């Protein structure tokens, strides 16, 4: 039986009249790379804030590693919540020393994590002299300190340039490949799609989806096709069993197709009907499509 790392039931949080998180429940198993996905203001950071005891929930319960959440359990978790938070006047090394003292981790581990994020050479530089990317990497080093059982990263690529995004994403991917359990909160669909095995989708504090990323994407595919005679194409597609919905956009037909749809089969079918396609593409950003569809419904 797989080990449950986090189990949350009925979490709720209000800020005055605003319901920031509305009765959400989910669980994370060991080895999951778990995405918390939602647009800005959907309740991702509030949810993490409650789980990490910086916000008091108005309702619900949660357990870390099968036990009641307390400071001892949090020491087993490496976290970067809403960006890196460090003392500007302290060096990178001394900032990590603060966390190592809290987590009761030997100071020798600081070198390992600083080397991992490529900041060992800058260990004696003050935090305020770091670039945004370096600060973010130090935040990740801080989270990796003491080899935590779970890594929580909240918008880890926020404010980074493309190079920085790639560096941070590579770090996360490397950790995930090493079997690290990760909870990644992001509004960047591409990021979640590339890294996460499981996901929870939030909007306006409500849980819209929970499950495997593959199942979420697999549900539907979108295909764009076009031919010289668009009406004849549309007519011919009425008889094709793998299509669930057809919409026209300018000179293009957008098809919602079943999961086992095969492009070559459709092409063969249309050619038998005397229709030659001048455009056929399967949408690459399946998560984006599915996410937008889901959030627009709610």
């Amino acid at each position, binding site marked *: 039986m797989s080990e449950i790392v986090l189990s949350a039931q009925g979490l709720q949080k209000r800020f005055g009249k605003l319901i920031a998180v509305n009765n959400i429940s989910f669980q994370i198993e060991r080895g999951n790379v778990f995405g918390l996905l939602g647009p800005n203001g959907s309740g991702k950071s509030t949810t993490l*804030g409650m789980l*990490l*005891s*910086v*916000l*008091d929930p108005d309702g619900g319960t949660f357990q870390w590693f099968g036990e009641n959440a*307390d*400071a*001892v359990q*949090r*020491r087993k*978790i490496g*976290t970067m*919540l*809403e960006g890196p*938070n*460090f*003392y*500007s*006047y*302290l060096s990178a090394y*001394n900032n990590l*020393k*603060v*966390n190592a*003292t*809290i*987590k*009761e981790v030997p100071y020798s581990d600081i070198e390992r994590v600083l080397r991992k994020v490529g900041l060992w050479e800058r260990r004696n530089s003050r935090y305020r002299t770091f670039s945004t990317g370096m600060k973010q990497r130090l935040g990740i080093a*801080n989270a990796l300190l003491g080899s935590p059982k779970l890594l929580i990263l909240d918008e880890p690529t926020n404010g980074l340039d493309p190079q920085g995004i790639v560096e941070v994403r590579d770090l996360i991917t490397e950790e995930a490949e090493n079997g690290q359990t990760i909870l990644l909160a992001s509004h960047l669909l591409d990021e979640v799609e590339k890294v996460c095995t499981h996901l929870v989708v939030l909007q306006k504090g409500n849980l819209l989806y929970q499950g495997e990323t593959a199942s979420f994407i697999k549900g539907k595919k979108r295909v764009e096709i076009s031919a010289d005679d668009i009406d004849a194409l549309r007519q011919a597609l009425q008889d094709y069993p793998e299509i669930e919905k057809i919409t026209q956009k300018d000179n293009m037909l957008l098809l919602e197709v079943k999961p086992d749809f095969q492009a070559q089969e459709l092409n063969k079918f249309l050619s038998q009907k005397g229709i030659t396609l001048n455009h056929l593409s399967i949408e690459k950003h399946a998560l984006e499509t599915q996410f937008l569809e889901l959030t627009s419904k709610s």
Partner: protein
Amino acid sequence: MKKLLRLEYIKYTRSTIFYIFIGLFMALVALSEISSIYLSNKFGIKLGFATLWPTLINTATSMNVFIGILIMVSITSEYQYRTMRQHIVDGLDKKDIFIAKHLYALCLSLFAVVFVALSVVVAGYSIGASTTGAGPFDGSQLIGRYFVQVLGYISMAIFFAFLLRSTAVGIIVYLFYMPLESLLGVLVSYLSHKDTMIPQYFPKAVFSNIVTNPNMAKLVNAAKAASPTKATIVLPEQTNLILGCVYIIIFTAGSYLLFKKRDL
């Protein structure tokens, strides 16, 4: 406890602000003591150890505000840079953070007490206070009162820090509270149309009168003798000491409730 002390040690012994405020405190205490001795000499007052302790401790009390601001900055900057929040996330309890801040405050108070005590002994020997026949520790019992007084100013600063959570606003309120309380006292006296003791029960008045200036005490006694029917101008030192301890408890409990109740 050791872990919390180590944590505060890593954070503050590498802070420039820490050294600036400690340096200011030491320099200004020394300067004010030198001025006090100079003035005493000018008026022909011979200072022996028994009078030197209350005189110099009283002089040093006005510098407690630097210790108060230092501890206030240490709390508000943790809010500002979200490091307090990070500590919770990394595995401390709110209770741990609260204790750590009070341990830091206690260390600063002890430092202030030790520095003032040493400065009195050094000043005493340098002006020949031992020649009056008094030993260097005659009158040193006041240092205990001074310790309570420092804790009082610090507990008030900690309360403002947890209440306001902003360095700039905190310092302004803390500094302006002192004259504001005096003004409030005048207003209360004016509205009551008679001599009233109420302003003497205000926290700043209580803290500052835990250690009274011996010359002020003489003036008070003279005023009482001249007009025995009028109310006493200041509360007895013993009453101030007890009230000071009560205020420290109130400020500390208030700070804890504020910190515990609010989200980070």
